[in-house]
């Protein structure tokens, strides 16, 4: 059973790789043909439209209303979104560490040296 999130991801994957804007029907055909499982074969056109309008309201997809049927395309590339996310995660933004908790931040070369020295000078206590 594909969740709404999985569907959103599949739709974006199609839009990100498509060179030109797609109609909801084209999009559905591509999703169905790329999916191996039986779940995708039952994909209703209305479901695709719902997912597209959700993605539009989140700012990932733009819709060309001048054209009939409406054409959809990705607002920006996958790489741009990855960069946006990592910018936030890696702490370049003002509000770093408020929204998320990182395992550990990357350290400066001198701190990295300290860490290696710590590791080599100490043996771990036996458990």
């Amino acid at each position: 059973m594909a969740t709404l999130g999985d569907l959103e991801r599949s739709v974006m994957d199609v839009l990100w790789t498509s060179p030109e804007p797609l109609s909801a029907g084209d999009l559905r055909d591509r999703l169905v043909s790329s999916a191996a499982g039986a779940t995708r074969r039952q994909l209703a056109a209305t479901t695709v439209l719902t997912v597209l309008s959700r993605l539009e309201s989140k700012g990932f997809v733009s819709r060309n209303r001048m054209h009939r049927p409406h054409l959809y395309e990705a607002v920006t590339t996958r790489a741009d979104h990855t960069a946006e996310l990592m910018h936030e995660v890696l702490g370049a933004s003002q509000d770093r560490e408020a929204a998320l908790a990182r395992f550990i931040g990357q350290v400066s070369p001198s701190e990295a040296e300290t860490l290696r020295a710590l590791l080599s000078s100490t043996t771990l206590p036996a458990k």
Partner: protein
Amino acid sequence: MVLASALLAILAFALAWPAPILLARAAWPSRAPAVALVVWQAIAIAGVLSTLGSLITFGLSGVADTLTAGLTRLTESVATGGSPAGLGALHIFALCCAVLFSGHLMLSVLTTVIRTERERRRQHDLVTLLSAPASTVPGARVMEYPAPVAYCLPGAFRTATVLTDGLVKALSPDELAAVLAHERAHLTQQHHLLLLAFRAWRKALPWFPIATRASDAVGLLVEMLADDAARSESSAESLVSAIVTVATGGGSSPDVGVADATPESAAPRVTRLLTEHPPLPSATVAAVLMSAVVLVLVPPALLLAA
């Protein structure tokens, strides 16, 4: 009233300056991070209460001899539109400060909560599109990215632990398990609530170095708590090697995160994991916890006695 006000002011001063510095320098918190977190919260709560209490008791001391009598007389005269006898300019100033200070703190918490929520929602939206659940790492999502990065998105309704495929490639299964246990501890122990509170405090008092110090100390203690959870589930060795691999960039180019000016946490965490410290004796823990409770109760007690 004036005596209570003076005592509260002394307490507020002690909690604003020497107490946090002593606690930040002490060695024992790394042996009992959970206890130290309780003490930090007690200092913050008692600090705010004693500051407000001192201002209010001083302001009302012009009107009456007890807190309740002062409050009733003040509301009565405000309702009738007059100013109560004995209320000098300094008293009014103190009362205004109390109102402004409490309003400022509440507003800061509110804006921090709203901004954090908005940021988290955007993060969840992006994570949904850019990462997929991976069968190799149960409970986590994996994203295509060369550098080794792991983080979790806390929240009341939905949470996510995100790993990059660079991290999955760089770590052994044991090390991955340690990272996942660490992030799971953050999520299940609701560390983000504590971080949010201290963050709001720091944002409310940016000119107050102690708030920054407290916020940094709490951040490190929370990491230590999560480290303890990870070490009990996997092993200290795996956790240390995972920390070092991720902190040094796992052999990938280290250009991604160097701009990040987070207070140093890698070395203290690794040192702590490498050297076996006996946990604090339970009598000490009980004494520290008791003092924390007493500390929080002192300002209300002084207010009631006033």
